């Protein structure tokens, strides 16, 4: 098998993965960025969520994020003020072009799109290599450090690194917005919705008139209530982009996808492909419903290249569908400490910042975030502890700090999941990749504890949704 040696390998090319790869390369370290798809950017380009609504205020516009916003403003001829969810609306290709240029400017950085993770190599508890597939060929990448910047934590899963996934009870961390353990186990909702609902963004184009000419035809099921809170025109222009395009990413009876999401985490490519096809069809159906209700004011429109031409370098094309889904939740690395909701909420009532992370008397912060908590699930709004404040004529989230102590712990990898008795299960080698597609999607969540006879190194029997117990 061909082999390459690179000190730092980053898996995943969203903003987090790109930031890690850029900063590594800028220190002069040879760095290899691997992405499964043909584009970079994740949420901010390939997934089509081109109106980000976090870290908007000028004190939080620092670092690569601030540089990215200012470059967007410079490159979009009609500016960034186009919608009501964000102060930054732009076309996907604009963001993708900027990110590709930034990568190309770093001589120590290489980007390989279209890769598949196949295996990991390890010595003891350290990752020493990856086996990837690229262009139909397998090759081994020897490394000193691997960084998982992917949306769902695919390298975490493959390597068996300690991670968490899905719901955790209020009793576990004391988080005020978390469900109680009893409810978590008793209510089937939490088994049906193991993670927040993702969206496959679709793109539309608006007609020449400034306003929707239709009084608002009723939307068909399952979108019948989508326009109820804000009206049809506001629903459509929520994520308006330059060039009269609109991003369809509407959470209220819109194109969030809620069903059988475990298929994205069970390691079965066929199940994942089926899920993705359903998500895409759902978003296109939502677009067509809006098209009809608006008497054609909105039309589904091509903005993205088809995956094949995207792989050939195309930045624009005839597809209304983004190149990848927008995931709101993935696996969570188990680090030296765990960031919990209390660290994101105001220090006390009336305060405008969250508690500063302190370690040995020093502030341990490296990044500021401020996103206002919201959850995407079917049904009514999930009740959340208050986090936002009125500022500058709008609502904005209380800023909080990310501490360095979150970084991966040098402890034996474990994977925790809630169980029937609410106690965490220690999964010595991480969750197994489920390679048995079955019709067991609706099975209750349960992971058996390792038996005394199985030994700590043996994975217990998996009884998750994806695995047959037979």
């Amino acid at each position: 098998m061909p082999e390459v040696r690179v000190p730092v390998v980053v898996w995943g090319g969203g903003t987090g993965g790109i930031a890690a790869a850029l900063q590594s390369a800028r220190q002069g370290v040879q760095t290899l960025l691997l992405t499964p798809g043909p584009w970079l950017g994740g949420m901010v380009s390939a997934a089509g969520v081109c109106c980000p609504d976090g870290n908007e205020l000028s004190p939080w516009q620092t670092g690569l994020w601030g540089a990215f916003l200012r470059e967007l403003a410079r490159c979009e001829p009609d500016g960034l003020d186009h919608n009501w969810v964000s102060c930054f609306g732009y076309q996907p290709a604009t963001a993708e072009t900027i990110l590709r240029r930034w990568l190309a400017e770093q001589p120590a950085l290489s980007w390989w799109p279209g890769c598949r993770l196949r295996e990991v190599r390890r010595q003891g508890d350290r990752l020493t290599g990856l086996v990837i597939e690229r262009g139909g060929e397998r090759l081994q990448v020897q490394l000193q450090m691997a960084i998982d910047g992917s949306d769902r934590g695919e390298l975490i899963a493959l390597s068996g690194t300690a991670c968490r996934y899905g719901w955790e009870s209020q009793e576990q961390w004391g988080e005020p917005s978390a469900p109680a353990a009893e409810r978590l186990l008793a209510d089937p909702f939490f088994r049906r919705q193991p993670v927040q609902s993702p969206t496959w963004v679709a793109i539309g184009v608006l007609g020449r008139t400034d306003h929707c000419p239709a009084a608002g035809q009723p939307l068909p099921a399952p979108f019948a209530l989508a326009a109820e809170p804000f009206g049809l025109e506001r629903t459509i222009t929520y994520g308006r982009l330059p060039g009269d395009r609109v991003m369809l990413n509407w959470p209220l009876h819109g194109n969030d996808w809620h069903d059988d999401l475990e298929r994205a985490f069970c390691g079965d490519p066929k199940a994942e492909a089926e899920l993705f096809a359903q998500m895409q069809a759902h978003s296109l159906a939502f677009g067509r419903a809006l098209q009809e209700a608006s008497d054609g004011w909105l039309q589904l429109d091509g903005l993205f290249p088809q995956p094949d031409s995207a792989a050939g370098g195309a930045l624009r094309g005839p597809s209304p569908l983004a190149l990848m889904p927008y995931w709101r939740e993935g696996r969570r690395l188990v680090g030296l400490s765990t960031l919990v909701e209390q660290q994101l909420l105001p220090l006390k009532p009336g305060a405008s910042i969250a508690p500063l992370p302190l370690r040995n008397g020093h502030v341990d912060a490296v990044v500021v975030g401020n996103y206002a908590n919201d959850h995407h699930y079917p049904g009514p709004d999930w009740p959340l502890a208050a986090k936002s404040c009125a500022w500058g004529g709008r609502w904005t989230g209380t800023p909080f700090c990310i501490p360095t102590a979150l970084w991966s712990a040098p402890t034996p990898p474990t994977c925790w999941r809630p169980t029937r008795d609410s106690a965490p299960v220690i999964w010595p080698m991480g969750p197994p990749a489920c390679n048995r597609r079955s019709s067991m999607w609706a099975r209750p969540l349960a992971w058996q504890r390792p038996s005394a006879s199985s030994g700590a190194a043996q994975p217990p029997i998996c009884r998750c949704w994806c695995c047959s117990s037979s």
Partner: protein
Amino acid sequence: MLVLQQQLIHDPQAPAGPLPLWDTPWHHPAWRQRQLAALMDPGSLDQHGQLPAARKRTGDLGPDLAADIAAPEPGERVWSGWLQQNAAGRTTLRPQSGASGDGPADGWPLITLEPAMHHWLAAAGEGPVRLVGSANPWGPWLRVSRLAEGQA
């Protein structure tokens, strides 16, 4: 202080702030000094993310920016009109009659991403004003960044 924090703050291409300083936009001339000072003495940061007024007055952290100072942006323009406070507590700008971009019938709601402008708007009464910003008809709002020259 961590070496990493210092490197983030002193990054020549994309300086990154580890701490939430509500009074310090990215373009503040003393941005680095303020981030470093707050890291050295986190107790000096109050519950509103503000550094001590005395240290800002004496100069080592620089004064807070005036409302007529912000980074210029592509596409921005001057908006002249009458400032109003509406019943919902929002500030609006009714453009001068005949001006382009009249906007909503009851005036443009104003928003800002700049701390100095936020404080200025919170204290402003009603009256004539000239502001620099960009219109967003789909907000709908005017995103204003600073007072126009001669307004302060």
